[in-house]
């Protein structure tokens, strides 16, 4: 790929897109970073242009052409449908991907590379699963929940795309469950409980990937050409019981082995854990993927194994308890942002908009979306 990469990132309001954009900003060879999302970014971004648009609109195509985007990183896939209705999840995951890929596959599309973030959940979780899933294998049982069904469709669209556009480098990254200090995942919520509900008589093998590693893999796939599908998970496994012991929590075997999802749903009424159904199956049968392709073909060794990821998390949580809540920081950032907007003259903001519009040269798309194109956005989320 020539120097001066022009990258478009979807899903910047969530952990993945936001952190990837922040990392890409440090690379001088990345000339332009454009982030598309309906909400603001999850982290503080310096030179990323954030376009408030919806992937559901075919406007994305216009954006790609007018900004001459050569690399598209699709991280908008919602794996943890917390506070999001099932319909929105489906729209974002399936229809959003469909529109994005349709735009990328257009005849006059400048896109030469596509990186898609999916999940190892695509392998499902059943009693008769093989001990290790490699990228070429697929599950026997049909999808048992809407999320997995959506994931199948997303992967089918990506496969379709790579067949239709053989000259585009397509990298599909299937991530195992992410754990880390920043990203709020179902597993962090589960592990923060004083006693951890488990399925009676089952002790699954789990695999985790540290959030830093996850973003590093995405960054690597964006900067270098690594065509193919890759499982991304920390080395080794932990048993759920082992994880509970490492966390120093109590193992609360309350979920029946028949109808565990239903029981979890009932539990959710008592304590809003928001644990999605596809992960309840994981608590029963577990899932382990083969990561040799990531090491050999992708050429990347993750910094932390599954056990180390968990150990890090335990350490982080213990340190967090004594240091007090980490949210103060966000408030401070918000205050700073507010003060700058209020007193530091409004021409700062107009200047930012002007710059964004000028660099993007996408007046039409900005006008049509009717959304402000702004740079130097500050986080308005709850996380720093």
């Amino acid at each position, binding site marked *: 790929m020539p120097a001066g990469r022009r990258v478009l990132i979807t899903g910047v309001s969530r952990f993945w897109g936001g952190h990837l954009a922040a990392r890409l900003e440090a690379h001088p060879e990345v000339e332009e970073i454009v982030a598309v999302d309906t909400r603001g970014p999850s982290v503080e971004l310096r030179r990323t242009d954030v376009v408030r648009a919806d992937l559901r609109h075919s406007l994305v195509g216009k954006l790609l052409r007018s900004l001459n985007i050569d690399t598209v990183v699709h991280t908008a896939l919602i794996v943890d449908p917390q506070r999001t209705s099932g319909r929105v999840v489906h729209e974002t995951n399936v229809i959003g991907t469909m529109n994005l890929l349709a735009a990328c596959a257009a005849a006059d599309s400048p896109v030469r590379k596509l990186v898609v973030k999916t999940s190892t959940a695509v392998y499902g979780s*059943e*009693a*008769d*699963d*093989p*001990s*290790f899933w*490699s990228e070429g*294998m697929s599950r026997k049982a049909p999808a048992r929940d809407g999320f997995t069904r959506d994931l199948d469709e997303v992967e089918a669209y990506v496969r379709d795309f790579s067949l239709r556009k053989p000259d585009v480098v397509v990298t599909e990254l299937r991530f195992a469950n992410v754990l880390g200090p920043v990203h709020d995942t179902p597993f962090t919520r589960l592990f923060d409980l004083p006693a951890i509900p488990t*399925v*009676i*008589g*089952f*002790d699954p*093998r789990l695999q985790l990937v540290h959030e830093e590693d996850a973003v590093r893999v995405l960054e690597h796939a964006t900067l270098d050409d690594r065509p193919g599908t890759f499982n991304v998970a920390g080395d*080794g*496994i*932990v*048993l759920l*019981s*082992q*994880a509970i*012991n*490492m966390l120093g929590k109590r193992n609360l075997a309350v979920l029946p*082995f028949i109808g565990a999802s239903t029981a979890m749903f009932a539990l959710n009424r008592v304590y809003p854990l928001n644990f999605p159904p596809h992960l309840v199956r994981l608590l029963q*049968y577990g899932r*382990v993927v083969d990561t040799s392709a990531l090491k050999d073909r992708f050429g990347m060794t993750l910094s932390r194994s599954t056990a180390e990821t968990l*150990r890090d998390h335990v350490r982080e949580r213990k340190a967090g308890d004594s240091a007090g809540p980490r949210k103060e920081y966000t408030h401070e950032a918000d205050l700073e942002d507010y003060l700058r907007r209020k007193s530091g003259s409004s021409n700062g903001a107009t200047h930012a908009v002007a710059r964004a519009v000028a660099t993007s040269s996408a007046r039409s798309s900005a006008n049509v979306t009717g959304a402000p194109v702004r740079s130097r956005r500050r986080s308005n989320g709850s996380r720093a």
Partner: protein
Amino acid sequence: MAMSATGTLALRLRELTGRDVLDLESLQELVSFAYRAAEVRAHHRQGRYDLDDFGFDREWTEVLLPIFRLIYKRYWRVEVSGVHVVPYTGPALLVSNHAGVLPFDGAMIRVAVFDATERHARALIASWFGGLPVLSWFLRRTGQTLGHPDDSSRLLESGELVLVFPEGVKGTGKPFGERYRLRRFGRGGFVELALRTGVPIIPVSVVGSEEIYPMLADIRPLAAMLGMPYFPVTPTWPLLGPLGLIPLPSKWRIRFHDPIPTDEYPTGAADDPSLVMKISDEVRDTIQAGLVDELMLRRTIFRG
């Protein structure tokens, strides 16, 4: 402390009575089991598990081994022959007949192999077990894995001993009247596996497992309802309830046959069905002949 105390006590009793009143060896094994179990529990509580990626906990399994060894030596009085053919290093595929409703034969073969070579044979189990509470994690934690072709070739490629029962549930679920008559050996998948990985096949004949739960009938509708491969009726089960789960103390004999090498065949031999079936039949005949020989050596079912 407790170990030397029981040892002294057992010795005194022997001096006094001239007989082994307390079985010194078994006692010591039980005492050491209690100690090591506490040790491993402490490790587990700290999150320290001696795991491989299949979920096999070697430390924990070796703690449980004395229990199985006690059953092996005292209850079923297993007599082993030919175990020297099991290699100390490198992969091998152990192929055995399967019987006895519950897969105790796998456990006994594993004790025999461990005592001879200090290696753990990794048995492949029916995928049905993966859905059972407790057994699903117990079997995995003790080194078993599901009989998926990918699993077995991974184990062999990493140099493990793999134990397979090609008869599968057809073997364990056969009626008492058909004991020691081998069922079909699947579709020869184990031969394909051996040819592909070039590992030797070691046929194993197990006598004694057929009598531990003499299966008189199979209530098929109930089995279908419970999602089980069969619902056995034995003289004690389900008549005596949980007591019916206690296996009968038959006399066991295990014979390991000479390895059949598979690395001399050209590449692609695994895709030749006639060769696969030929080797499969050869293995089956060896095991069947071994069963007949061992049955001749065992004069009565329970006393041996």
